[in-house]
């Protein structure tokens, strides 16, 4: 009896896989930080990805897209391990990866060892990924950390009249890139950045960092994300901190603005800049917000999509639309697909996106201020929209190259 039923199961599974093979599939590997400090960011990234599939569908001509999701923890080795597993075990042909800055640099380098495959960056934003020695099969449809800070320094200097600021940031490539963008513009306008503190990713106890913040500055810029940002705010409140705050793109984001507890209220009025603004009036953005809200029940999502959801949405959009342009043709080492990806212009929710010669996005940036909607939910409100931001931030490429690569101390606080 047991043997018989086992045989039946084996037979039926054979039949099932037979029908599945009748329709050709294109396998796509996706990674997100579903572990560690950036878990919440990864989860919302995946929500953005699913929203895109809901809107666009999974069919390309007569082929069906099949997705395999792998988890990382924001460290470069975890990203390479996940990507390697997707390629070697799951035999994916296209990758949508990764989420975080250091991961991006590692995956870009890894992409060179598989020139036949296509890598589409999901959300990572370190400058080096596409600026230094870019991989020909690595495409990034979101802006980098420095592009996401465009407008912030000038607005803080001209409108808020901040003259001296200090920064606190996580010690890795994406935040270096963010501070790079901020310092370049703020110091270029005439401001001073007196102190830059760096804390390891995953720091829990910020009390000493908070005590070391200088008193004699007009504002403190926070380049933190995920659990680190929540911990910082909680302890900042307990220490009775009162300074004006400015925020980076993953600090002033729904991942933090809708965290539980009341420490986030310290952020009301905080100035920030990012590749999106929660309350933007643009119909394309409003439609995306509605799609996102309709796709998940309210307790399984944020009130409004985070930057990660938006990035994953945009990247997935590029992946599917370019694949449709070539009708799913991945022959000849995917050369037609790669050409289509390089040329495609996206009408993404957060503005038009096209790629430069390094396959890096040129897009729209937003300066925002955090507001309370009256019911206790916090949103980022647009104060300024800046279109066509490129990777050299409007500088002449030769001048930009002289500034150096983002690091703990680069750029210097001066006018370039």
């Amino acid at each position, binding site marked *: 009896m047991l043997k018989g039923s086992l045989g039946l199961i084996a037979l039926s599974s054979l039949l099932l896989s037979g029908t599945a093979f009748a329709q050709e599939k294109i396998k796509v590997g996706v990674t997100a930080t579903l572990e560690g400090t950036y878990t919440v960011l990864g989860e919302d990234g995946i929500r953005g990805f699913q929203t895109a599939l809901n809107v666009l569908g999974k069919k390309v001509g007569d082929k069906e897209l099949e997705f395999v999701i792998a988890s990382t923890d924001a460290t470069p080795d975890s990203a390479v391990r996940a990507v390697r597993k997707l390629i070697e075990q799951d035999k994916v042909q296209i990758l949508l990866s990764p989420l975080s800055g250091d991961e991006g640099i590692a995956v870009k380098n890894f992409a060179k060892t598989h020139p036949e495959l296509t890598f589409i960056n999901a959300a990572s934003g370190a400058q080096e990924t596409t600026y230094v020695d870019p991989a020909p099969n690595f495409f990034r449809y979101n802006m980098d950390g420095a592009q996401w800070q465009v407008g912030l320094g000038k607005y803080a200097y001209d409108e808020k009249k901040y003259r001296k600021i200090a920064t606190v940031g996580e010690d890795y490539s994406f935040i270096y890139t963010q501070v790079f963008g901020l310092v370049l513009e703020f110091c270029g306008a005439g401001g001073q950045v007196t102190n830059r503190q760096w804390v390891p990713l995953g720091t829990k106890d910020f009390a000493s960092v908070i005590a070391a913040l200088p008193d004699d500055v007009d504002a403190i810029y926070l380049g933190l994300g995920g659990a680190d940002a929540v911990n910082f705010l*909680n*302890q900042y*409140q307990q*220490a009775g901190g009162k300074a004006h705050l400015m925020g980076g793109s993953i600090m002033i984001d729904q991942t933090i603005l809708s965290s539980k507890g*009341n420490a986030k209220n310290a952020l009301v009025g905080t100035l920030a800049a990012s590749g999106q603004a929660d309350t933007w009036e643009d119909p394309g953005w409003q439609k995306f917000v509605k799609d996102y809200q309709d796709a998940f029940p309210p307790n399984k999502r944020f009130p409004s999509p985070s930057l990660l959801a938006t990035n994953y949405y945009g990247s997935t959009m590029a992946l599917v639309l370019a694949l449709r342009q070539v009708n799913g043709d991945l022959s000849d080492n995917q050369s037609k697909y790669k050409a289509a990806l390089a040329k495609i212009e996206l009408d993404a929710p957060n503005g038009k996106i096209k790629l430069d010669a390094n396959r890096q996005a040129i897009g729209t940036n937003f300066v925002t201020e955090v507001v309370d909607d009256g019911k206790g939910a916090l949103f980022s409100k647009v104060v300024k929209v800046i279109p066509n931001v490129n990777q050299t931030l409007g500088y002449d490429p030769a001048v930009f190259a002289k500034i150096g690569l983002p690091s703990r101390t680069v750029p210097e606080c001066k006018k370039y």
Partner: protein
Amino acid sequence: MTRFVERHPAWALIIIIAVAVALWLIFAVWPPGLEEAIGRKRVFLNALFNGITLGGLYFLVASGFTLIFGLMRNVNLAHGSLYLFGGYVGYAISASTGSWILSFIVAFILTALVGVLLQLLVFRRMEGQDLRQTMVTIGLSIVFADLMLWACGGDFYQVQTPNWLIGPIELPLITAVKSSGEPVYLRYPLVRLVIFLASVIIGIAMWLALNRTRIGMIIRAGVDDRDILAATGVRIQIVFVLVFALGAGLAGIAGVVGGTFQSLSPGEDIRFLLASLVVVIVGGMGSIPGAALGALIIGLAEQLGSVYIPTYAIVVTFLIMVLVLALRPQGLLARR
């Protein structure tokens, strides 16, 4: 004390000088030269206090760990999961009832219950098989982590600090003197002081219970020789269950504490397991005073490191562990 001085006069001198320097650094108004060399006194004092209060949290987690190991020779690698579980329970209670104190009580009881179940259903069945127990606890910690991820999601939870504990208080320690001659006092988060006091009280209570009560005597006898103790007619299984419940309950309390001044999220279990392993290795496996000393050293190293050598702060903790393992492998205060 006098015996120590007689036996190690050089060490005693060094310790006395170190204590004197530390006291001077804490109480004196720093001369400008020193401020220029190593930064403001406020930063130093804050880092010092943070190190001590963080040590208090580490002690809460590690004391349960070391107690269980001391008596049962059982390296419970699911201890971090108990910490996180306690934290989530504390969050749920404080969010639904608004009572911070109640959340400690419920978290203690529920994690202690989980500890009892673990002892009865798992460890009792494989008594004396160290490797099997260790492997099973690793497996359990993975299962627990995924169950909690399933139930609570990847979100960050913070146990709400009660209103009377929010904000800083002024301590009678002068950090600087203004040009007008008016002294500036140290402002320090009240909640951290309260939590530190609580962990000191728990530590002293545990020490008293172990050294001054009958049950403490039984536990100490069990640590020294389990088989002889059982042979004298003590119902050792009940003692095991009690100790496991206490150790697990302490981890649960620590979870609420951690959720109050830090946050709770997946991954915290591993972090605190690692922290308590390091603390216990430095202090000496199975020793409560050792756990206290180890927690203090690791807390101070983390906080002073994060201020004065931020780049290498992560390494300092492990450097201390390596040094201790190299020079005194049984731990600083181990009895054997």
